């Protein structure tokens, strides 16, 4: 059962990772992806909006798909919302498995699917007062599509 969390607060990556191995000896590897807010072009802050209720449901479904495709011992997805400053973390994906391939592949799958299948929207605020909604990227769709066939 995956741990899914949507929150404004910062998270503790080391504690989250430790929780996936605590008290068990069947974990051979923990893979992680930490998404961080870049400060490109004078970005002052990123404001993350989401659809409460549907967000948790969509993330749970994506995590369940990862657990169906790979033999995971644990899975954690934490996505922040609200105002995020450059240099701060936005999203954490952790996957644990007996072997590295399942952990690494499922981690990449989760972040690729999350970007196209979970209802979050980013708005960029700039130091000069400008603000704009981030447009969806074609490369994100392409990255999600490469997982559409189940692995052999």
């Amino acid at each position, binding site marked *: 059962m995956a741990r899914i969390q949507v929150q404004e607060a910062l998270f503790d990556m080391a504690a989250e990772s430790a929780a996936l191995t605590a008290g068990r000896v069947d974990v051979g590897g923990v893979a992680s992806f930490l998404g961080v807010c870049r400060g490109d072009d004078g970005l002052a802050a990123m404001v993350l909006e989401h659809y409460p209720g549907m967000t948790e449901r969509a993330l749970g479904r994506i995590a369940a798909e990862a657990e169906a495709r790979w033999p995971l011992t644990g899975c954690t997805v934490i*996505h922040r919302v609200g105002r995020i400053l450059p240099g701060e973390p936005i999203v954490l994906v952790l996957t644990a498995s007996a072997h590295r391939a399942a952990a690494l592949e499922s981690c990449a799958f989760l972040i690729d699917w999350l970007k196209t*299948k979970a*209802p979050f929207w980013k708005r960029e605020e700039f130091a000069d007062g400008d603000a704009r909604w981030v447009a969806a990227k074609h490369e994100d769709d392409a990255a999600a599509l490469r997982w559409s066939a189940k692995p052999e």
Partner: protein
Amino acid sequence: MRILYFAWLRQKIGVAEEEVAPPPEIRDVAGLREWLATRSAGHAAAFADAKQIRAAVNQDFATPDHPVAAGDEIAFFPPVTGG
């Protein structure tokens, strides 16, 4: 029928949600979108480019031909940009 708006649709329309009772001939997401667009200048601006709009019915992503009915929660929003 409860309608929710997110991101720039919410900004253009000026409300995050509204309760509506469309006429009975409105049966799917595309029909509802066209009907909502007639409600105000803000709605018309928000729904002007159908290609930039996605929808969810009862918190699941829905295609334009997905049926809609009284009591549904229907959301309209731009393509998602999380992660």
